[in-house]
């Protein structure tokens, strides 16, 4: 009996972890305690099984592992990007963007929904925090969409799904964590997520377009009297066209002279020239630009500048992800400060939010390191490997099984837990199968995006519930009483977008070049790399 237990300690340990976690005690401490309890059991049972390599002196290593966690430079980016996200949320950038985008797209059918998707993408490209995006858009756009008769499920679905874009469009927190756990650098992960992220945005827009065709009443255009920015599309178009030309010219002139990133510089030139024109027009009061064009250009610039500051510098190789995060957070703080929207209270609250998030994330990591010390000591990694390589279908079977697993887990637990507990177990197997780890990480990241929308525990749905009107409310601008949004409507709204996201996961799996480029080999069973990520 004892020998049976000794030989199967890894599965027993895993099952007991699941039980511990389901009790609802904090994840970080459950992981650590599970590791320690089974360490004691393992040492006692070591004489009975060859596969247990634990002894008392090994326990002293736990504290060294905590020092390793503290020295982890990559994860330093987490509080930076969180701080940046919270500061931007509190400084009202999201409001400005949503108001303007809503006015810009409002006149067309489904316009408010497009505005939410695009603003969601812009916010995602500056922050990486889902909660901030969903709450901001839920507070600002939801009442407007309801006022003008949007279908309730569609409205909340668009908002929650667009909020989750922060998960996949860089600089997302989940990609940082995944890069760390997979032992790859963050830069390639970010670069690889750009195209799939943009395609997700495109897919969302296509869906809204399809809805406006099939069910026009679900997403009506803004009535004439609600359009406050006036007309003046011509001058906006002219500005955009001119700056676009400037950008392309810049790209064309630069591409022979600099090694990389001509496209990024071109985009920067385009944005700068549009801003320059708007600024000059305002300053000299020439009046060439319409109010609309002025407004659009001036609210678009701060997020674009931040995106360049953070992502541009990371992609150009100027900055690491951590440095990019620090620059972005500094930029966001300065921006909020110049606008006079950074009183002591806001700064202090933002720092507190970043502290809390960073603390619980790092403690889950500490817990999982204590857990893995024992788990590897009882040959748990070999058990998982045998389990996963036993799946029929080789690489494809593995990928399908992993995606199914992550999807199901995502319904119940948070992406941080999946990344810290499950991914370290899967990464060595993926590597053995010759799967490109960047590609693997992006697939997992895309998949985890759904975890925010899947019942019963979809966090984007919870955020939405917390800000959407519960019962009937009086809409001030129109003076009408509007019915609230039921929880069932919020949950239903997410379904279409879950399907869209799963389609994207499939696309990324089928077309690896979307994330890792043409030149690289995606599946090569001969290529087994020696440098294992530091998981043990």
């Amino acid at each position: 009996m004892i020998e049976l237990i000794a030989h199967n300690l890894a599965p027993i340990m895993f099952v007991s972890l699941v039980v511990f976690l389901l009790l609802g005690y904090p994840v970080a401490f459950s992981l650590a305690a599970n590791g320690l309890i089974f360490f004691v059991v393992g040492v006692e049972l070591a004489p009975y099984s060859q596969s247990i390599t634990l002894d008392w002196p090994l326990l002293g290593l736990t504290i060294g592992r905590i020092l390793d966690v503290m020295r982890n430079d990559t994860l330093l980016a987490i509080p930076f990007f969180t701080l940046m996200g919270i500061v931007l949320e509190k400084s009202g950038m999201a409001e400005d963007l949503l108001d303007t985008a809503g006015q810009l797209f409002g006149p067309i059918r489904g316009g408010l929904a497009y505005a939410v998707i695009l603003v969601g993408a812009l916010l995602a490209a500056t922050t990486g925090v889902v909660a901030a995006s969903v709450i901001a858009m839920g507070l600002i756009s939801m009442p407007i969409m309801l006022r003008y008769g949007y279908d309730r499920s569609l409205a909340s679905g668009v908002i929650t799904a667009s909020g989750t874009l922060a998960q996949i469009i860089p600089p997302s927190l989940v990609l940082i964590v995944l890069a760390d756990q997979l032992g790859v650098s963050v830069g390639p992960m970010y670069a690889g997520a750009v195209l799939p992220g943009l395609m997700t945005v495109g897919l969302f827009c296509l869906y809204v377009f399809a809805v406006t065709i099939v069910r026009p009443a679900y997403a009506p255009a803004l009535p004439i009297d609600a359009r406050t920015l006036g007309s003046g599309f011509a001058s906006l178009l002219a500005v955009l066209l001119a700056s676009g030309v400037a950008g392309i010219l810049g790209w064309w002139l630069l591409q022979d002279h600099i090694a990389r990133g001509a496209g990024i510089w071109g985009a920067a030139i385009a944005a700068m020239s549009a801003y320059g024109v708007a600024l000059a027009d305002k300053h000299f009061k020439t009046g060439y630009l319409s109010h609309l064009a002025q407004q659009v250009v001036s609210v678009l610039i701060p997020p674009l500048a931040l995106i360049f500051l953070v992502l541009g510098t990371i992609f150009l190789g100027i900055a690491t992800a951590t440095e990019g995060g620090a620059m972005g957070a500094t930029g966001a703080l300065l921006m909020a400060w110049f606008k006079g929207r950074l009183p002591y209270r806001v700064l202090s609250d933002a720092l507190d939010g970043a502290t809390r998030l960073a603390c619980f994330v790092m403690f889950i990591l500490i817990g999982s390191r204590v857990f893995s010390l024992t788990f590897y000591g009882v040959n748990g990694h070999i058990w998982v490997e045998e389990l996963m390589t036993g799946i029929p279908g080789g690489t494809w079977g593995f990928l399908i099984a992993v995606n199914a697993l992550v999807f199901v887990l995502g319904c119940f637990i948070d992406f941080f837990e999946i990344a810290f507990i499950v991914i370290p177990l899967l990464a060595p197997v993926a590597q053995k199968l010759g799967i490109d780890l960047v590609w693997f990480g992006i697939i997992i990241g895309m998949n985890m995006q759904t975890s925010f929308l899947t019942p019963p525990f979809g966090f984007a749905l919870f955020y939405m519930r917390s800000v959407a009107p519960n019962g009937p409310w009086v809409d001030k601008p129109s003076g009408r009483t509007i019915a609230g949004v039921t929880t069932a409507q919020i949950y239903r709204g997410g379904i279409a977008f879950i399907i869209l996201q799963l389609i994207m996961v499939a696309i990324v799996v089928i077309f690896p070049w979307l994330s890792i480029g043409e030149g690289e080999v995606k599946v090569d069973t001969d290529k087994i790399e020696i440098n294992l990520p530091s998981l043990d």
Partner: protein
Amino acid sequence: MEGLLRVSGSIDRLTLFIGRQVRWLILAAVLVSAVNAIIRKTFDTSSNAWLELQGALFGAVFMFAAAYVLQKNGHVRIDALSSHFSKRTRNWVDLFGHVFFLLPFCFLMVWLGVPYFWESLRDGENSSNAGGLVVWPVKFFILGGFALLLAQAISEIIKRWAVIKGVRDD
């Protein structure tokens, strides 16, 4: 019970104070890291001491905030099942977890942490990076953070027990 609750109250005030102050170190870490990045690019030099400083600041934040986050119930739980438990059951789960999971873990870390920190301080251990910082402050953050977490665990146990006994409202 009265006396124990007073002890718990004192611990809570201490961790709250520390937890509220360490947040400013995040701001410091952001600024240090941003300046490091700018200097690295413009002057093509970098100092390991400053690079290590940003990590050390962050380390101090999450180690010393752990007790505060515990007090504010900010460590994530998987509540898929437990949200259906009664309040009483959840109290018992917390009490059980604090006593059998958290307490031994913190105790072990403090027990290992004392010699870990002390030897580093005594030997004046330096970072393995050229021009890096001395190591003992970081090791002190580990020790101090877990000592504080241990204290907070005791405080939480007292509070849970008082709630279960009906002496204290939840």
